[in-house]
């Protein structure tokens, strides 16, 4: 590999600063006491404490999964602090009262708040180390009956809704990390779109992990009632620490008849340094239930950060004619590892799913696509189309594809296409001979490669994702 390729990936992490706010941190370790403490701190009803304890009991019987194509030292779950909340000076009535230090952090992160939020048409629910600090645009949304708040607030104000749906798509014992999350989640977002309402703006949450040695376990719940639709954006960053941090979130989406939920993520957690020290372990369970007829669940993700990513945003297509979509770009560099993909579970008649996955590996990184398409006996005339493309930048990285296809109904049509390409020296020389340097060349090639996924993102996110990718790959070509 030539020197031009080498130079393009090694840029420092831009979001690597720690905000100096007093945090209230629970002692390290996990036991029933910790869980009772979290629940009490948050003033939770008994049913939620029961939910947590049930999950904890399940978790004790489970072991960490090891089938995924990633490698990392065993996590000591007793070394993690399960609760960290920025200590509020007093109750916050408006944005002006938010800790200025915090606001500066958001500014550095480029979180669109205040007028910027208004201009971009974005309502931001900011999750800062597990506790929602400020929520904008709530009133405007409230006029339409839309609920958009932290899950803690939802537990207090809309307990029946939360109780009905939490754990409905991802049961407490679904998998090791989902069980852990169910036991200890501290905050997250809640979104409810009532019948017939099309949410007039994209709803956005920025997640950021701030305290060293703290795990982050958010819980997100999005419900779209009959005929409702919503587009939800999630952006993630974390500061730079030498130790690894665990991020084990659970996201549940529920779409009723004719409802439509589009969930987009741009993930830029700290990935560790160029020698693979530090970085976030991103072990996330995301699942959508297309419950009603003609409903649609659509996942779009751009995964650029984290030392290890392990996530499979999935769709359960229960309603007849329901639609599931998964559009993914996963970029790995240096020593990053990603094992990501989706599951499309077809239960209803005429259900359709589309999977477009683009994996880009640079440096010494490894990325795997893992996907399951299951057509149940009840899924008459189900259709799936999957396309998994991998692109290698340089000679030391790897890309792998693990498609699992289970068809139990003869009327099904399932198509799978896969390709692997490489940004070659010859391509870069071709660009160079036309006056274009390697960085611009890689950026153009990679953006071309990801085009079908970027087209799915809302405008501002697409711009951000394009920049992030170029930034991420700077120095990887040489």
């Amino acid at each position, binding site marked *: 590999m*030539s*020197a*031009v390729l080498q130079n393009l990936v090694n840029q420092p992490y831009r979001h690597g600063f720690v905000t100096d706010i007093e945090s209230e941190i629970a002692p390290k370790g996990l036991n029933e006491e910790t869980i009772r403490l979290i629940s009490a701190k948050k003033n939770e009803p008994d049913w939620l404490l029961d939910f947590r304890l049930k999950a904890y009991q399940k978790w004790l019987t489970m072991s960490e999964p090891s089938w995924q194509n990633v490698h990392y030292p065993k996590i000591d779950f007793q070394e993690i602090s399960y609760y960290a909340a920025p200590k509020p000076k007093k109750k916050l009535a408006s944005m002006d009262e938010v800790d200025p230090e915090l606001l500066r952090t958001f500014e550095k992160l480029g979180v669109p708040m205040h007028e910027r939020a208004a201009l971009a048409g974005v309502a931001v629910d900011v999750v800062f180390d597990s506790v929602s600090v400020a929520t904008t645009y709530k009133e405007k949304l409230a006029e339409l009956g839309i609920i958009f708040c932290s899950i803690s607030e939802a537990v207090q104000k809309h307990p029946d809704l939360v109780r009905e749906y939490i754990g409905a798509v991802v049961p407490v014992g679904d998998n090791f990390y989902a069980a852990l999350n169910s036991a200890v989640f501290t905050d997250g977002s809640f979104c409810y779109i009532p019948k017939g309402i099309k949410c007039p703006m994209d709803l956005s949450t920025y997640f950021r992990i701030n305290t060293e040695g703290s795990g982050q376990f958010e819980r997100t719940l999005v419900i779209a009632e009959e005929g409702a639709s919503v587009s939800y954006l999630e952006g993630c960053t974390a500061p730079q620490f030498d130790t690894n941090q665990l991020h084990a979130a659970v996201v549940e989406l529920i779409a009723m008849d004719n409802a439509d939920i589009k969930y987009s993520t741009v993930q830029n957690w700290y990935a560790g340094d160029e020698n693979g020290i530090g970085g976030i372990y991103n072990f996330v369970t995301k699942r959508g239930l297309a419950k009603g007829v003609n409903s649609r669940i659509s996942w779009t993700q751009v995964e650029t950060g984290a030392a290890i990513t392990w996530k499979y945003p999935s769709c359960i297509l229960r309603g007849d004619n329901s639609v599931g979509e998964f559009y993914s770009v996963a970029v790995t560099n240096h020593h990053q590892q990603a094992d990501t993909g989706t599951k499309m579970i077809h239960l209803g008649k005429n259900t359709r799913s589309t999977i477009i996955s683009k994996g880009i590996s640079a440096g010494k990184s490894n990325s795997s696509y893992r996907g399951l398409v299951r057509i149940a006996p009840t899924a008459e005339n189900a259709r799936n189309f999957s396309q998994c493309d991998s692109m290698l930048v340089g000679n030391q990285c790897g890309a792998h594809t693990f498609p699992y296809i289970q068809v139990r109904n003869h009327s099904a049509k399932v198509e799978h296409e896969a390709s692997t*390409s490489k940004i*070659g*020296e*010859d*391509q870069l*020389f*071709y*660009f*160079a*001979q*036309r*006056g*274009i*340097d390697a960085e*611009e060349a890689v950026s*153009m*090639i990679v*953006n*071309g*490669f990801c*085009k079908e996924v970027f087209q799915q993102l809302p405008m501002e996110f697409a711009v951000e994702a394009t920049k992030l990718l170029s930034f991420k790959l700077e120095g990887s070509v040489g």
Partner: protein
Amino acid sequence: MINNDSQTILDVQNLHASTQGAEILKGINLTVKSGEIHAIMGLNGSGKSTFAKVLAGHPDYEVTQGTIQFEQHDLLALSSEERAQAGIFLAFQYPIEIPGVANSQFLRLAYNTVQTNRGREELDPLEFDDFVREKMKLLEMKPDFLDRSVNEGFSGGEKKRNEILQMALLEPKLGILDETDSGLDIDALKIVAKGVNHLSNKDNAIILITHYQRLLEHIVPDYVHVMEAGRIIRTGGKELALELETHGYDWLHNNPKNSAGASA
């Protein structure tokens, strides 16, 4: 065409280059002046493409001896993109495919990058569209070609026309055409030749690498050089190409004339 008040564009002295430990160019001498067209002929494997790539700064090749002056500057001190910006253009023997990148996008980036570096105005997408469509007429290209990915799924002829189109856009001082004629049917060859003749003027120069006399009927060279084992072993006028066509390359060995490399 050879004229008296022309400037030296390229001056290659005793050029040696190797790749992976093997020396491929073994002492090339060549001087090219403005207004001239030079043909380089020779058997497969004689080092013609290597010479072209070394001029363009391909990172696979290391220059071990000799000098290259381009318009009185040391060409070897420049990166490949700087050489392109300075006015060296290589029409590739095997143009590279770039899936996912639209030709229009690629051409505009190349054009604007080179323009900026030459201190000229960039064109916005609409202006560029008009500009490129005008140039495409010269090469009789279909408009849909702009929306397709760079060279992906192009026929051999389309790829070669795309190279000449890029030359038309970038207006190089020195155009090096590496077997642009191979794989073209006679109609396509005529179109490409017409394009090249249109671009050739008294201020620039062209090096044509070819196997065949055929192309030289349409683009008439001022000099013909024969390359063998990494050296220029014979230089003559356009009639040398005809003699080679008639007698074959072995004939050169039986008729050793002066084997000096430098022209004029």
